[in-house]
């Protein structure tokens, strides 16, 4: 396999253009199916009523927010190791989508928290580490924006992303530990024991849709970045 064939922006540009619409279309179909299952097929939760249905957005968004940071760090590491131009472009194309999903996860989480917990915000371990993840995404984007030379920006951001990805588990566990120290079981995230099969189906459909949406948007964004930085053509 010639892995490095597509490492050049010139050859990747048309490929990205071909991938983006298909992924976008698939994402739209899957999201429609997932939302249908979530709103009309899945049963009402015995304890939380209809409010629980926001998990069909919330949980996949939270998954994607963490997963995209790892993907970003992967591209960053690749860029530092092989000094390829495309890797840095991919990392900076993924960052805004990751930040978006982090924000969506926090937003829908607080929308769910108000009727269920009776409060918009709780210093729960997961909420807090998600918030810090959002700060990490913002730091990445702010550093990229502050450096004039895009190649230098890519490499500096790559170091930051790698430092961040090492820190994320440490932050997660320290926050969890802090949380268990500070407050008792005033709020519990545990839901009804077994999740209905349709609920799981809806959630997985939405997760796939978000995944494909991320690919589509990253491809479109990476094409914009390529156009900004160098002369590329179909």
């Amino acid at each position, binding site marked *: 396999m010639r892995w490095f064939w597509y490492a050049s922006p010139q050859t990747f540009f048309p490929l990205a253009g071909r991938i983006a619409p298909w992924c976008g279309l698939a994402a739209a179909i899957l999201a429609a199916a997932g939302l249908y299952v979530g709103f009309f097929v899945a049963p009402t939760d015995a304890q939380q009523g209809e409010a629980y249905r926001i998990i069909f957005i919330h949980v996949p968004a939270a998954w994607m927010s963490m997963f995209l940071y790892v993907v970003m760090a992967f591209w960053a590491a690749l860029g530092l190791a092989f000094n390829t131009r495309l890797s840095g472009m991919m990392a900076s194309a993924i960052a805004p989508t990751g930040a978006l999903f982090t924000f969506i996860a926090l937003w829908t989480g607080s929308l769910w928290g108000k009727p269920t917990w009776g409060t918009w915000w709780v210093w729960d371990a997961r909420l807090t580490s998600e918030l810090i993840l959002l700060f990490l995404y913002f*730091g990445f984007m702010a550093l990229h924006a*502050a450096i004039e030379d895009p190649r230098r920006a890519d490499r500096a951001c790559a*170091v930051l992303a790698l430092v961040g990805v090492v820190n994320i588990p440490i932050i997660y566990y320290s926050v969890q530990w802090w949380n268990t*120290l500070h407050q008792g079981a005033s709020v519990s995230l545990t839901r009804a024991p077994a999740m209905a099969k349709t609920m799981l189906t809806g959630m997985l459909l939405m997760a796939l849709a978000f995944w494909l949406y991320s690919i589509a948007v990253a491809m479109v964004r990476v094409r914009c970045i390529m156009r900004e930085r160098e002369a590329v053509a179909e």
Partner: protein
Amino acid sequence: MLAAARCVLSRDLLLALRRRSDVATALLFFVIVASLFPLAIGAEPNLLREIAPGVIWVAALLSSMLSLSRLFAADHADGTLEQMLLGAAPLGVVVLAKAAAHWLASGLPLVAIAPVIALQYDLPAVLYPVLALSLALGTPVLSLIGAIGAALTLGLRGGGVLLALLVLPLYVPVLILGAGAVEMSAAGSGGEAQLLLLAAALVFAAAFAPWAIAAALRISSE
């Protein structure tokens, strides 16, 4: 290799000694920030005792961040940094020595003065050693992580604010463990676990942060 580290360390310490006002400013900042909280929250002794570890740690965090942007700036401006990058001594060792000098000039005074702040907050005297120890273990980690941010933002416009945005989220575990150690001791269950974890964080940071700092410096001064 060790000679180079010693040389950089003594040079940076000498520079800090010659510019005593920089060190004093950071220390003063620490004291002022810690003194603002009772004014804002109220002087209720029980409340102050409860928030003391957290306030002292947040103030230490901010104060150690204040001097970070100066860590490489002067060397960058007068070309010393380029010589360090070109020199035979491994860059990782050099930056480790620089981070150590930064801690000795900005972290160690905090450790020394923290009991005085704790006194203002009416923290029980038995907690002073735990507080000092947690700061002594935690502030070097802050210096090491902060040095990564300082190297990344070297020579950028608006570097100071950007540095805060990059570094503060990474400080979170140290803050939790440091303040937690004192709070746990105050609650009577001992803070050994937190102190051990802080020591582990210090070892981890001392081993890996120099690589990241060196890589960031090479990128910044291309």
